[in-house]
């Protein structure tokens, strides 16, 4: 499959650009398209999302990060494990976090314009926060990234078709504003119909199984795969 050159952004994953390179293209994640990263539990999906986020921050692209699995503190800790310190980006407001886990009233969240609390069982509230998050980020830089870690928890706490609609709305909003979103999802955590819906929502599909990273679909290229390892630099192909 060779389609006219599609502009890509750097994934931050060593080897990924080479794997996804097409004729004349640079490789990476096609800009302004939606990607699903899925696979069994503990195969590195969150690490993929974090790496993607950090690469963006390094290159001056802000990120809207929606965390449903870990609170902000845990997120920071897991970033630090790989020497991806995010404190600076929280301070300069280029990292915008919607935390649906930590409780702000217990003082677990810092007071900041770009750290916002929401609730895992309240998708409407999450969408409102996403709306203002996209608006805030877009004003400062129309080139931005967004990550949801993960759809799994959202699906577990809410009606599944409602979450499919919420995710569709999320992707439409981010795309409209020019951003590049990634959704993380643990395989088989919802029924087959929901999983197929999820795949049909996105442009690109990447599967991690612990040994191999498979690009099952990507705008402009065909199916590709490579073995991977998780090292102290994150995922490496």
């Amino acid at each position, binding site marked *: 499959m060779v389609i006219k050159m599609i502009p890509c952004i750097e994934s931050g994953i060593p080897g990924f650009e080479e794997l996804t390179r097409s004729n004349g293209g640079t490789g990476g994640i096609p800009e302004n398209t939606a990607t699903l990263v899925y696979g069994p539990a503990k195969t590195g999906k969150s690490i993929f999302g974090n790496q993607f986020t950090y690469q963006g921050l390094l290159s001056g692209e802000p990120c809207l990060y929606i965390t449903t699995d870990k609170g902000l503190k845990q997120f920071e800790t897991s970033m630090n494990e790989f020497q991806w310190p995010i404190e600076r980006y929280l301070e300069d407001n280029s990292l915008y976090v919607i935390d649906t886990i930590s409780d702000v009233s217990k003082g677990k969240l810092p007071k900041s314009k770009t750290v916002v609390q929401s609730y895992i069982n309240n998708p409407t509230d999450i969408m409102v926060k996403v709306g203002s998050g996209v608006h805030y980020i877009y004003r400062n830089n129309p080139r931005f990234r967004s990550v949801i870690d993960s759809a799994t928890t959202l699906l577990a706490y809410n009606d599944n*078709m409602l979450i499919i609609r919420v995710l569709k709305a999320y992707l439409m909003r981010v795309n409209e504003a020019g951003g590049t979103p990634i959704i993380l999802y643990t395989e088989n955590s919802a029924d087959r119909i929901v999983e197929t819906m999820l795949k049909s929502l996105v442009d690109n599909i990447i599967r991690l199984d612990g040994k191999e990273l498979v690009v099952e*679909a990507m705008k402009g290229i065909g199916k590709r795969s490579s073995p991977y390892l998780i090292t102290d630099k994150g995922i490496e192909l």
Partner: protein
Amino acid sequence: MIQTIESGIPGFDQLTVSELAEGGIPEKSTTLIYGPPKTGKSIFCNQFAYQGLLKQEPCLYVSTDQGLKQVQSNMMGFNWLIQSYIQNQTLYIIDGISQLSGAKLEDTNNIKSSSVGNPADMMVKVGIGTRSVYKKSNHFISILDSLNTLFAFNQEQMVIRILKAYLRRIREAGGTGLIAYTEGVTNSDTENELKSLFDNTIRLDGEYIRVESNFEDYEEVKSYESTYIITDEGVVVNGK
């Protein structure tokens, strides 16, 4: 002989030649194109629509998965430029999803914004749209891409009812309808009912294309199969 229209898909018209038809998409019929996610269904739809536009055949395009902007940019990736057809109003678009992104869409003569979660409004717009393209020509194409989002936003039986009404409108006006659907987003009963509503089905699985045409007047069912690939020309049936 059954009248057909050129599909615009290299190799497809040769594949579907029979003693009944010349090959291509049977004119004034309805076709369901289905298969797993990311197998080229939307590309097929766009390719077919573009082929018609090139020959100045009007097209009613109902987009529920992607906003008009994204459809346009996806088509541009294949060098299928539709701006001039929007301007000369050969292409009539019902955008059922952009509202969801919070974007303000200005309705024009031939671009109408609707909402996938509001089937009544969608059907009103389809009615107006059908009349508009029908006035231009009684040979028109209608694309619906895709049923998935309709299923995500509405009850299954509601979607089936909308679809029946939509297909009836297209048939009455003499249009040729192509409707996309991702296999596996409803249960198998609904899926079977869905397939039974169409004259033809095309299944894409990433490797094979399988076409089944039910020519009722001749009491014959024809089926064809081939491999296909996706290139910078779109879907290419390469007959291996």
